[in-house]
């Protein structure tokens, strides 16, 4: 080690920001699941670790007056996975959190750390993009909020300016009360996704699609969505042709890489299959839930 790594664990955001402002080589330490792995591999050696563990209000998940849910940056994956206060499309965060790594990783890792690292094969970036969540940021110039699809800028790159930190993720209320499914394809359980899709689906009484949001991960430098292709499926029954069109639209926008989890070509071919599966399963979950609520049991329909 070239230099001694220092450690600080402040109990106010102001102190965190002033430590980060004073030292460009300082890094925030959230759960450590990524940063410490990189330190152990010799990929980074911050001069100062600024632990966020003692900051008040950063680890909690809080309902907002308007029906939004604010997930603090230091909320652990296991906490989000078990949270039962999400409604409709908001629940895609819990569905994704359940698929992150393994039990001992989910007790450590945090949502703020995951999205700040911005690995497009990670689960949260895709999930918060599908949920139209807003990222809360604190920095030397004050606080600001950035929508998820503007937060992820490029491979491992976010809209965070130097000296800024993520303080939370605000997940808007979902008036459509969609059901969700997070579909993740991996060769080994707990790995980063080869391809993943986060789907939020609501159906009308006649089985037509009432609301649809789908984000795909692991297929481009950032999570991707095709809002116009989502909109094209609204008001019609869900069909294989419709899903294929959505999958093709996403595949057109994709820009995957070759790596040990799969070739770019493989990912491009896999993407429509995973998207279709995510949407069908979300739709099936919506149908099953409606049936359970109306007391008539699961109804036919939903997927033509």
């Amino acid at each position: 080690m070239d230099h001694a790594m220092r450690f600080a664990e402040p109990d106010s955001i102001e102190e965190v920001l002033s430590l980060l402002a004073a030292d460009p080589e300082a890094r925030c330490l959230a759960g450590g699941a990524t940063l410490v792995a990189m330190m152990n591999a010799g990929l980074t050696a911050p001069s100062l670790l600024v632990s966020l563990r003692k900051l008040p209000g950063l680890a909690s998940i809080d309902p907002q007056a308007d029906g939004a849910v604010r997930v603090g940056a230091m909320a652990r994956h296991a906490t989000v996975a078990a949270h039962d206060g999400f409604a409709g499309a908001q629940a895609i965060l819990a569905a994704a959190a359940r698929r992150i790594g393994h039990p001992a990783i989910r007790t450590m890792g945090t949502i703020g750390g995951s999205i700040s690292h911005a690995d497009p094969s990670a689960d949260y970036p895709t999930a918060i993009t599908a949920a139209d969540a807003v990222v809360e940021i604190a920095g030397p110039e004050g606080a600001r909020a950035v929508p998820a699809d503007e937060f992820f800028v490029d491979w491992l790159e976010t809209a965070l300016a130097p000296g800024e930190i993520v303080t939370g993720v605000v997940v808007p209320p979902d008036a459509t009360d969609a059901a969700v499914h997070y579909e993740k394809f991996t060769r080994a359980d707990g790995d980063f996704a080869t391809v993943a899709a986060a789907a939020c689906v609501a159906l009308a009484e006649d089985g037509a699609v009432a609301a649809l949001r789908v984000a795909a991960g692991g297929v481009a430098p950032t999570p991707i969505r095709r809002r116009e292709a989502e909109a094209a499926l609204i008001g019609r029954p869900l069909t294989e042709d419709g899903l294929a069109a959505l999958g093709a639209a996403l595949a057109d926008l994709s820009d995957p890489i070759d790596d040990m989890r799969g070739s770019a070509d493989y990912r491009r071919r896999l993407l429509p299959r995973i998207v279709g599966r995510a949407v069908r399963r979300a739709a099936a979950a919506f149908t099953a839930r409606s049936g359970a609520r109306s007391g008539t049991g699961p109804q036919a329909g939903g997927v033509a």
Partner: protein
Amino acid sequence: MTAELDEDALVPLRVTVNGRAQALACGGGETLLTLLRERLGLTGAKRGCNQGLCGACTVLLDGQPVRACLTVAATCADRRVETAEGLLRGARLSPVQQALVDGGAVQCGFCTPGMTMALTALLRAEPRPDAARVREALSGHLCRCTGYVKIVEAALAAAEAQAQKGADGAAAGDADARAEGAAP
């Protein structure tokens, strides 16, 4: 492996390890795994991948399984750490440890302490898990001897043994109560 120890920027650290409160000092970026193995001589937790992937370093922090290799030691201030060494009661193995031995679930042994801690946390939270829950708790724990089947069987046997012990304890208690009730 003292090269891992970073003596220049020591952070004071009060931490309870296996029930014993300790006043220590650690490097600013030092991991809990280095602290345990190299400052405290507790070599149960193993350094396998040092990337959080293999599970061999898993310990309990405030009762929850964590990767010691990814945990910055200084963040453990005023918290409780449990390692495989802490499961011993004198020379007696814990029910999970005993079941692993009895079930032939230990081969080279490198993954065993991490598996043991994961199973200990599981059985505390869920005394009667099914095989699927055991496998889920063990996901992220690699055994390169590939002895997974026996490890899962041992976990279920440990749960059974604990339940049996509980039932025996309750029965003994009932017997005591009856004896007391019958006493003049």
